[in-house]
């Protein structure tokens, strides 16, 4: 029982981290229909920037705040430099640009900060776990979970209640039509990338606090893909639920299945599960259903 509970809680906590990164992914998809394959690198940049600021002696909270601002600037720059000309071009090209961006970001970050493993010194969060009953939770995870919930509320509200929120979704649906109504697609792109950079920045800063940071953080950008798909590519709550479900699933497999089927099964089971799940819900939990009407 204890093992089960611990696995569950670990799953939820790790899932929270996944959700954080998945959010950025979903926002970009929701606004431009683009799968952002550079999400891991955005996280990497966020992590490095906040680490770098912190290492100059700025308090962590301020670091995160500054990271957010830098994220917004980077988001706008990314749109201006790399995506502006691609408005109206085939989606796949845009997706490939995100692959190019991933190289670019990674290379640049490594050029600036070097590839060796970095740690927050002194540690921002206490290294000791909090004990709740028989459970034990690492503080960083706890905080990131709270951040995820906060972002969830903020983003859902943004998309539901603001003019831009709606227009951004419209853009993803039909760019040309949105343009014809005066929705500035460049702004939408810039905004969505900024939001993605923000979530990645926060996510990266927290993530770097867990096991330090090096190039491998970028790897997480893909690990969250099942989470995004599970929730439905354009659903914000879906990203969160997806992240958590995948987190739990991974950990449950890790705990109960690895003994029976040895070998890397932990990261693979979510995929197998998802392939089956999609046979019943081809658009994830709450993704837009493909409209096939003639």
């Amino acid at each position: 029982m204890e093992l089960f509970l611990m696995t569950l809680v670990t799953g939820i906590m790790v899932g929270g981290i996944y959700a954080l990164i998945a959010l950025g992914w979903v926002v970009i998809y929701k606004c431009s229909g683009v799968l952002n394959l550079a999400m891991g690198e955005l996280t990497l940049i966020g992590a490095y920037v906040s680490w770098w600021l912190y290492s100059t002696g700025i308090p962590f909270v301020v670091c995160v705040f500054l990271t957010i601002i830098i994220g917004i600037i980077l988001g706008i720059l990314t749109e201006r430099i790399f995506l502006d000309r691609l408005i109206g071009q085939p989606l796949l090209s845009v997706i490939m640009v995100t692959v190019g961006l991933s190289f670019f970001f990674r290379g640049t970050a490594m050029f600036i900060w070097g590839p060796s493993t970095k740690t927050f010194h002194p540690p921002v969060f206490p290294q000791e776990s909090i004990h709740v009953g028989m459970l034990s939770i690492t503080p960083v995870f706890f905080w990131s979970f709270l951040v995820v919930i906060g972002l969830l509320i903020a983003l859902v509200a943004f998309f539901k209640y603001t003019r831009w929120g709606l227009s951004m979704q419209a853009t993803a649906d039909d760019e040309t039509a949105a343009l014809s109504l005066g929705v500035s697609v460049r702004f939408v792109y810039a905004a969505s990338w900024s939001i993605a950079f923000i979530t990645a920045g926060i996510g990266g800063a927290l993530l770097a606090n867990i096991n330090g940071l090096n190039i491998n953080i970028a790897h997480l950008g893909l690990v969250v893909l099942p989470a995004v798909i599970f929730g439905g590519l354009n659903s914000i709550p879906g990203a969160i639920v997806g992240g958590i479900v995948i987190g739990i699933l991974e950990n449950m497999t890790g705990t109960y299945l690895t003994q029976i089927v040895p070998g890397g099964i932990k990261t693979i089971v979510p995929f197998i599960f998802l392939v089956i799940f999609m046979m019943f819900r081809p658009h994830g939990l709450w993704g837009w259903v493909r409209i096939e009407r003639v």
Partner: protein
Amino acid sequence: MDQNGSILNIQNIEVRYHEVILALKGVSVSVQRGRVVALLGANGAGKSTTLKAVSGLLATEDGKVTDGSIEYEGRRIHNSHAADIAKQGIIQVIEGRKVFEHLSVEDNLKVGAHLRKSGSVKDGLDLVYHYFPRLYDKRGETAGFISGGEQQMLVVGRALMTEPKLLLLDEPSMGLAPMLIQEIFSIIHKLNEEEKITILLVEQNAKLALTVSSYAYILENGRIVMDDYSDKLWENEDIKDFYLGLSDKGGKSFRNIKHYKRKKRWLT
């Protein structure tokens, strides 16, 4: 037609797609403030292209105005960003019923209100629902699932939400039931009269187009081949023959059409 008082002035534009396909070969159109101007022509003549050149949407199809100029209220606007053009009040209703398929009907309309001050969104909705009660019934439905004609109403309604100054309508009546066609033209008429919206209209139903417009251009193969006041065109024999179908002695039936083939173009 005199150039003064014209809100939109297209001068001798040339448009290319993909840098190699020449779609417009020198088209000049001038639209007077507060008027309805119609653009007629066979398929492929370049009507939609002309509208897209004005609204800036050409860019999304890899098209470009390579020569000539488009002026709106004295400012050159060709090849500027579509969103910027829209902000100046030029709104195009694109052909092909491009609704936001995944959004609800009402959300579609709300996106149309993107450029409006937020307070007046409700007024806009009321106006659209007033003109198209059918949309009111369907307001909660996902736009991708409503019928073709309803989608057509939706794109026209959505354009109205923007409070346009110059409305570029690309085949507004396409796919609408007869009753609605009458309706939509009376709406166009009203918009022009009451809301003082200038309209550049592309329409295949030449009779109706000439009815509501005060001036019209005939486009063939990327060139303007004729332009005149609508009343005059109405009397023109060629127009009667090719666009209005009135020249035949009464009682012509589509059944007998096969017995004669006509092929005439002004200039090719």
